[in-house]
């Protein structure tokens, strides 16, 4: 089981849960599985071509997947995944 931290803007899709669980062998698979349980999540994370959106970052155990293998980064039981979007406000 993998723990996935959901940022506030996406929580309406996860019934306001800040953390959900997923079973997956890779980030790509995790996104598919999350989308099956929480429809709409994939659209928020990926563009039309299925690539991760450029203002969304995904971390596995605090490491940015862009420095790992991107969507092909493998996952194993007990991994913690964080979805980290940019925050704009300030005024």
């Amino acid at each position: 089981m993998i723990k996935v931290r959901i940022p506030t803007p996406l929580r309406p899709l996860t019934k306001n849960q800040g953390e959900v669980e997923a079973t997956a062998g890779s980030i790509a698979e995790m996104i598919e599985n999350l989308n099956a349980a929480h429809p709409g999540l994939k659209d928020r994370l990926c563009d039309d071509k299925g690539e991760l959106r450029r203002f969304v970052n995904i971390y596995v155990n605090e490491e940015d997947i862009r420095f790992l293998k991107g969507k092909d980064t493998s996952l194993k039981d007990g991994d913690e995944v964080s979805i980290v979007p940019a925050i704009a406000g300030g005024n």
Partner: protein
Amino acid sequence: MDFTDEQVTRYSRHILLPEVGGKGQKKIAKAKILIVGAGGLGSPAAFYLAAAGVGTIGLIDSDAVDLSNLQRQIIHYTPDVGRSKVLSAKEKIQALNPDVQVVMHEERFVAGNALKLIVGYDVVIDGVDNFPAKFLINDACVLGGKPLVHGGILRFDGRVTTILPKKSACYRCVFKQPPPSGLVASCQEAGVIGALAGVIGTLQATEALKIVLGIGRPLTDRLLDYDAKKATFREIKTKRNPHCPVCGEHPTITTLIDHEQEACELKQVKVEA
């Protein structure tokens, strides 16, 4: 430069700190800090930097104070509604500490003036409310070689990080480009708990003072995220991206550009009863 007796008393709680002392307080007195945005984050940052005795504080904002600002933009008071934000902020800073010189830049921070605006300052504080400006501030500070303390707030979530150009991860190393319009909620659309601006703006002021003093461990290569609902802080490690379009090995951004989208472009919508 020597401090008067009054200044020694005013700054005594700083001077008592071994990390600051008279020497550090002089560094603060000589420092020039630019605050982009005299709003939610800029207000507490400006107050604490002014109280600390920062020699010069620059304020950039082209807006007037709106009644809906007062819930969090604590440097503006009720009688200031309709008045220039930079002027309102300047008056409060000078009332708090006449040692501080305030430079008012009553204009928008855009690609055309960004580098000119930051050039005379030692540290820049990001207190703007939209992605295009946040990316522009990042790019300007990387190109201009100015330390930047980034902050962001929305709803109950806040974030701070420090960027030392070409030494630590910049905003674009982490987030490559602004999200398209409409995909991310703004404060005006989504709301923000007022005191959160105080938490994040005050952290930004603290980081700026650490840079000026050259003490401690800067908040670089880390995003410090604050979840006000859970009352937790979390650190997300970041690192320089060799492919970063502005500070990477082969940068594609070598001059400044204005991004079109504005997260807070929606004007106030009146709720009909």
